[in-house]
């Protein structure tokens, strides 16, 4: 994708360039191909409900719920870190220009998240019930409402970026401040949805809301770093490299904090070894899908990025690779938070699991092809939204500008 100096689209388009094969066209093609292939899964989902999935009454939440949490972390985390750095800490003059592209990315991620969580519902077309018949005692109600409000704030900010007037820009600044507590609330409540569940002992407690917050900060910083390095449109001189390096350091610092926090939390569960809690963690570490944790999360998501960021000659590209690797592999974390604690039923309730056999009564889970296809559909949709915003609405980073005053 081009990161050269911004030139209005009209000036670059000519009759000959329309026919020429460009990387942008390849990306559009990739997006539509994903949408088309993923559409097969979507059709299956709409026609056969959740039957094509590997979900069951013992493992009712799977890939789509995990992907939703992961996308919320990315969406909220990146905007939170950007807002804190630009509006609160008044970081350098290079970063603020990224606002448009970051908001666009967040909207694209939001689209993916809503598709996945919507299709995870047994009755997707009743999602509006949560708005009309909310039960405020349920944290899921709060999560959905907060996400809807966050969506409105986000879309408003994107609109302001498209039609900036002094008055609207002031509103945008205030919305940025509002988005900070709103974002924290959304992420923490999303974690609390699991934290209040006494039916799954590994989830229950105050740890998950905090882990969710920490995960959002690390993943958000990684996304911000990646986007800055890849999409920054100004001159790639000293200020650019210095900003990339500072972002990389911040990302590494948060990554280490997150690693220590999760290690401590894991040890607290593993040391007493109470089966209802420890089994989930043992499944994560040594179960049939051990490689999700050790290869994807620890190997490619933690060790390789850490090495890349610790080497002295870390160039901007190397920082982007580190952040990108982390972003891609971080999906392993919500998968491991959500799935193994549900599989524990096979150990602690073996008598129940063996008593009944049949569809929807298995205590195991691995996403089916159909689930992967629906996920591909959602990701492709978000990707196309991004491409549309980036290439058609021209929501590209602006050249350097100072942070907006209060």
């Amino acid at each position, binding site marked *: 994708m081009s990161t050269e100096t911004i030139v209005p689209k009209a000036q670059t388009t000519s009759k000959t360039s329309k026919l020429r094969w460009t990387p942008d066209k390849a990306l559009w093609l990739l997006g539509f191909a994903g949408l088309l292939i993923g559409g097969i899964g979507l059709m299956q989902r709409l026609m056969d409900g959740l039957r094509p999935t590997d979900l069951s009454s*013992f493992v009712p939440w799977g890939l789509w719920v995990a992907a939703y949490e992961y996308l919320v972390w990315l969406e909220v985390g990146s905007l939170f870190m950007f807002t804190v750095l630009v509006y609160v800490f008044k970081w350098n003059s290079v970063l603020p220009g990224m606002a448009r592209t970051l908001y666009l990315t967040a909207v694209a991620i939001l689209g993916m998240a809503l598709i996945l969580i919507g299709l995870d519902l*047994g009755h997707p077309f009743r999602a509006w019930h949560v*708005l009309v018949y909310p039960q405020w005692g349920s944290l899921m109600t709060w999560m959905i409402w907060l996400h809807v409000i966050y969506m409105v704030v986000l879309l408003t900010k994107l609109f302001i970026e498209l039609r900036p007037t002094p008055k609207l820009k002031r509103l945008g600044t205030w919305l940025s401040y509002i988005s900070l507590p709103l974002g924290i609330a959304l992420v923490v409540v999303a974690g609390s949805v699991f934290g*209040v569940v*006494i039916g799954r002992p590994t989830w229950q407690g105050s740890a998950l809301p905090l882990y969710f917050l920490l995960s959002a900060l690390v993943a958000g910083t990684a996304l911000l770093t990646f986007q800055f390095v890849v999409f920054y449109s100004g001159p790639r001189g000293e200020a650019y490299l210095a900003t990339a390096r500072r972002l990389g350091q911040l990302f590494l610092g948060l990554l280490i904090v997150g690693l220590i926090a999760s290690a401590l939390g894991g040890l607290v569960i593993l040391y007493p070894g109470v089966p209802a809690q420890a089994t989930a963690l043992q499944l994560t570490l040594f179960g049939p899908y051990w490689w999700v944790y050790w290869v994807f999360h620890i190997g490619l998501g933690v060790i390789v990025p850490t090495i890349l960021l610790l080497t002295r000659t870390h160039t901007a590209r190397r920082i982007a690779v580190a952040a990108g690797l982390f972003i891609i592999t971080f999906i392993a974390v919500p998968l491991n938070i959500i799935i193994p604690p*549900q599989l524990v039923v096979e150990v602690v309730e073996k008598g129940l699991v063996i008593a009944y056999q049949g*569809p*929807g*009564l298995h205590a195991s889970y691995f996403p089916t092809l159909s689930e992967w296809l629906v996920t591909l559909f959602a990701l492709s949709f978000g990707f196309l939204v991004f491409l549309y915003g980036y290439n058609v609405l021209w929501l590209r980073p602006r050249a350097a500008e100072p942070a907006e005053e209060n």
Partner: protein
Amino acid sequence: MTKTIEQEKAIPDTGRRNFLRSMVGVAGVAAVTAVPIAKKSTPPQSIPLTTIQPRSAPALEVDPDTDVLIRMQADLARALQKPMNERRWIMVIDLRKCVGCHACTIACVAENKLPPGVVYRQVVEQEIGTYPNVTRRFMPRPCLHCDEPPCTAVCPVNATYKRADGIVVMDYDRCIGCRYCINACPYNSRYYDFGFSQYDETPTENEVVLGEGGNVLEMLPSFEYGQARTRKREESPIGNVRKCHFCIHRIDVGELPACTTTCIGRATYFGDANDPESLVSELIASPNVMRLREELGTQPKVYYLT
């Protein structure tokens, strides 16, 4: 709260058309002025009986030596004379008598036309010891209808709630199928209806299931919650969470739950704990009574005699 679901604004057909119609008004406005305009959602206190009307069963004279079913029937009839909020339905299961025949499970399937994958009346099996000193233990476990149910608190739309008589029920038309309550139940007593059919993978000819009587079970309506529901593709209760409801459609007309009447060992008892004369009140006063996972404070209304 004494409002019925009919008095509340009924949730009409919840299909796509309705969804779109509703979203036009809701989506944008709700997000900004969300909290104040949202209608406070209260759980309906009773579900409309579209096909069955509750009636009071006549009081029965009971011989003390008669079958416990007759006595429980009399207890039930007496309880129905009282207002709903003065009843407290409980179930008592004598584990010493259960032989693991699963008759209760089958009766429940037949009564509620349950599809594969949905089990209201579980009988958990456990093998204890090593040969030759080995035995099997069976624990029938329906929904425990907790007095402090963790499942109802998490429902984002109040689709599951506790009735005035303590029975935890589902409102299929309101349920969005998020399955949060399944994870919240510490007893694994809730099941998701994926829409599987008893006749999946059964040979068919001209879309008719082969074999005499094929498709009959599928075509019969279920009378759960007093609503005659015929199973249709992707319509409730398909896509909903389902659970034992103590056969309220039977209780409300003076009949015992299906699992209770079919128990060959008379190991399952049902009745009103608020009635000191009832059989269940006598049974739970014995010293060998227990409930599951008392440490959680959920106050289950299913008691076990050990």
